[in-house]
């Protein structure tokens, strides 16, 4: 049976990297006494799959992983058990049994929503909010994206599904598919680049609000819908 877990990450633990968060949950699952399934072979490992890695320094309230369990009481009980073994800064928000043909967390990810706040060291132009709107109103945003293999020219506009100003922050919904993932800081860097604003070190505080999959009808819905 497959179970999907949703969790948040905030405060000091934002400095714990993705791999270490995976190890953290491998241990947490043991502490919680969850009857997780293991792979076969001489060095068996827990069958677990994480949705989309979160960069060091970012916070989130929309992280997910799937695990295969051998036995299971109910969603609420598992939520409680996991909740009891968490550290400050990681909360388990939801547990959901997956339907039979449901794709795994990593493969399902289609998009992610972020909130971007600015560091005090970044001197924002007075009209930055209007500029952001016109930035998004362009028909094409040609950019060069660094990939594992080298560089690629893409139209960034196609990967930004939503971009708007919310108070002092920027909300964006962007492509987070495994091959086409767009980092929120890349969008912001492109924007400020076009604006001609020099960026200091670590200009943004980034918070992931939600991770989405695409339903058959094309709608974006949270990984636990």
């Amino acid at each position, binding site marked *: 049976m497959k179970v999907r877990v949703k969790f948040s990450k905030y405060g000091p*633990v934002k400095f714990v990297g993705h791999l270490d968060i995976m190890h953290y949950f491998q241990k*947490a699952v043991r*502490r919680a*006494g969850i009857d997780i399934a293991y792979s076969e072979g001489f060095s*068996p490992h827990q069958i677990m799959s994480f949705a989309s890695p979160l960069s060091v320094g970012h916070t989130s309230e929309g992280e997910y992983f799937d695990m295969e369990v051998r036995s299971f009481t109910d969603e609420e009980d598992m939520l409680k058990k996991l909740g009891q073994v968490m550290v400050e800064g990681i909360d388990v928000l939801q547990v959901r049994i997956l339907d039979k043909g449901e794709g795994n967390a990593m493969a399902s990810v289609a998009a992610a929503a972020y909130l971007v706040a600015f560091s005090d060291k970044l001197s924002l132009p007075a009209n930055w909010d209007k500029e952001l709107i016109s930035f998004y109103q362009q028909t094409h945003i040609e950019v060069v994206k660094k990939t594992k293999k080298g560089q690629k020219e893409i139209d960034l506009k196609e990967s930004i599904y939503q971009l708007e100003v919310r108070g002092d922050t920027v909300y964006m919904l962007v492509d987070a598919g495994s091959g086409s993932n767009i980092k929120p800081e890349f969008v912001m860097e492109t924007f400020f680049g076009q604006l001609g604003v020099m960026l200091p070190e670590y200009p943004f505080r980034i918070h992931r609000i939600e991770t989405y999959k695409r339903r058959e009808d094309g709608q974006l819905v949270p990984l636990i819908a």
Partner: protein
Amino acid sequence: MRKLALSDEILMKVEKPARYIGGEVNAVMKQKEQVQVRFAMCFPDVYEIGMSHLGIQILYDMLNQFEDVWCERVYSPWVDLDQVMRKENIPLFALESQDPIKEFDFLGITIQYEMCYTNILQVLDLSRIPLLSKERGEDDPIVIGGGPCTYNPEPISDFFDLFYIGEGETRYRSLLDLYKECKAQGLGRKEFLKKAADIPGMYVPSFYDVAYHADGTIKQRIPLEEGIPETIAKELVEDVTDTYYPHKPVVPFIKVTQDRVVLEIQRGCIRGCRFCQAGQLYRPVRERDAKMLKSCAVEMLKNTGHEEISLSSLSSSDYSQLPELLDFLIENCGRDKVNISLPSLRIDAFSLDVMNKVQDVKKSSLTFAPEAGSQRLRNVINKGLTEEVILEGARLAFEGGWKRVKLYFMLGLPMETKEDIEGIGDLCNKIAAVFYETVPKEKRTGRVQIVASTSFFVPKPFTPFQWAPQCTKEEFLDKAYFTRTNISSQLNQKSIKYNWHEADISVLEGVFARGDRRLNQVILKAYEMGCMYDAWSEYYKNDLWLSAFEQCGVDPAFYSARERGEDEIFPWDFLDCGVTKEFLLREWHHAKEEAVTPNCRKQCNHCGAARFKTGVCMEKRER
């Protein structure tokens, strides 16, 4: 939500920021207003090393069980953060509260190896605690040292207010009570230290002076305060079963060296290898009851979620309840896919059978520690491992499917000759030959892999070799070169790989190990010149060290290369580790006669440790 001592910008900039955030699983949080004593426990090396140390985990757990105490952890900031903290004037902080160390009542530093001495100064310096004890004021924490290197604390005596000699479980309660009492009465640092010196195991270095002969050896120790003890006896836990053991060790976020549950099955060792300091310091050997260990194992696995458990002791095969404990672990861990790791097991039919159950034979390697290449030299060092036993162990292992063997040797042991070194290559070659004899051609999947490693011998206090001269760097390198040439002349040389350690560091370690108070200034000078993380060969700066010695007018060879006279007073003679100097001298003579001394289970050799009236000394022997 805890507020971190370091800004986001800094944490984004440094390597592995999770080293500095605390908040790990099982880290202990308390309200600082609700405790009376704040204790910062420090391992002066990087987080991943410090977090792997069992001793600190035991003390952290014990101190936090005391309701009036909050013990927190602090480690050496890595070199990148070190620079930032100096530049931006950020004081060193404890991981839990993120408060400056300077605000604490105690800074306890565990001193596990000599090469961390400059890191002790780094920690003090970044904490803004004066490096020299005599310059500290009423607002500074009491700096207390513990751990194996305190069995010769003299080279670092100026930096500590107090040393705790021996096992930490026994006297912290009385020390902390005394501290509270002194504070309540408004007594100062000096009065506290004066009273602390009365507690068994406590050594206050500033209360003594040392006079030297013209040849540089010690003439006498001079007590500077009335009523302070002349010798200080080590503290020892008599009952290692009914005592403190952490059931909820801290689980780091990042990968550390020892990423597993550690079960210390016994303390001490019956063997009495003459080069080994731990084997003498922790006498007599005391076993923990298997029942206690089983329940600890279950609890600790449950509370940490670790996927591996490791037994820890100097020589696990000598633990009398080993089969019972292993059966239990194999049965219980198998269910939850917990790996069992078994270092320091003697290779024989029993251990191979166990390892076959818990390891992937194809991937794992077997370890032998003959320490010396020839039987003659093994007799000198009292290492009771014969060639016959090694070859038989190898044969059994090869039959069982293993094909990787690691061998550990030392170069520069007392009375070593060319023939002894040739014995290293010879033994490796014979092991390879055993493989080709044992495993028929059609069953061989590739070549047997033998890895021989040599370390350079460092004579240590409280061992029979404390009188022995240490080789110079050049002698060490010649020996390593000769070992290499000899190994490559062996018939099966293609199956043998050879590694050796850095010689500079071993020589300096030797100087510190048997040094005296005159080294304080050298260590301080070297630190001021930029030495730090000396245990890390990529940061070890031999030139700076040599120049520090020269500037201080101290000759390192006086401490390392000199053979000491039998009646010489050693800097550490005022400490009593249980084993008498007469016994050690007797053993030094036996070494010269190549005579073997039986282990404690076979026969008591009257080393002096029987006065603790515990452990193996109280066991009935056959005969």
